């Protein structure tokens, strides 16, 4: 079964520090990859996605992620974090189901705290 691993459960950074959150997935076929963010008290929002093409994808709020097929990875990066980036970050992979439809398989999430 498809699985997604996020290695860091909690990350604490100071403002202006660089961020990299790891994500690895297990499925060997064609994948669509996503990073969602959940700010305190808010819903899951799409940060960025990879479907095909350039493996370096740029999302909102200065985030980017790199798809490395050989490593089954889709790490999230931001060169300089802000206090407002404090949130929980979820990596997810689109997985085909028997009916041909999709479901998202999520990682456990990484809780990021940025101190001012």
């Amino acid at each position: 079964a498809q699985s997604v691993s996020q290695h860091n459960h909690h990350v604490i950074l100071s403002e202006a520090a660089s961020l990299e959150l790891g994500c690895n997935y297990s499925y060997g076929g064609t994948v669509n990859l996503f990073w969602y963010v959940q700010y305190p008290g808010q819903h899951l929002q799409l940060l960025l996605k990879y479907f095909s093409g350039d493996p370096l994808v740029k999302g909102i709020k200065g985030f980017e992620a790199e798809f490395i097929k050989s490593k089954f990875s889709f790490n999230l990066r931001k060169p300089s974090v802000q206090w407002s980036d404090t949130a929980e970050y979820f990596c997810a992979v689109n997985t085909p189901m028997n009916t041909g439809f999709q479901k998202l398989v999520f990682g456990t999430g990484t809780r990021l705290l940025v101190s001012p």
Partner: protein
Amino acid sequence: EPEVTQTPSHQVTQMGQEVILRCVPISNHLYFYWYRQILGQKVEFLVSFYNNEISEKSEIFDDQFSVERPDGSNFTLKIRSTKLEDSAMYFCASTGQGAWETQYFGPGTRLLVL
């Protein structure tokens, strides 16, 4: 920008009671989903729905659960007889014209079963 909405935001119920969680997907979307997140655990897929029927469901989605699209806008999740372990955040999501498009999530309903 269109959003998925969910009501209520919080629900507290007694074990054995029925609850209905409501979602209004984005208006021109065709594919609908429910996920749940038990506190401290992963977001898990429950069910997908297309063309007025369930297209896929997980092993979590047993006979106590049902989904319905009673009119052109609402999408509901019913839990017939709640158990303590049903306490979780329930998220609705929808996708547009293609089954493999990006899923957009609602704010969630936090369900507490006592």
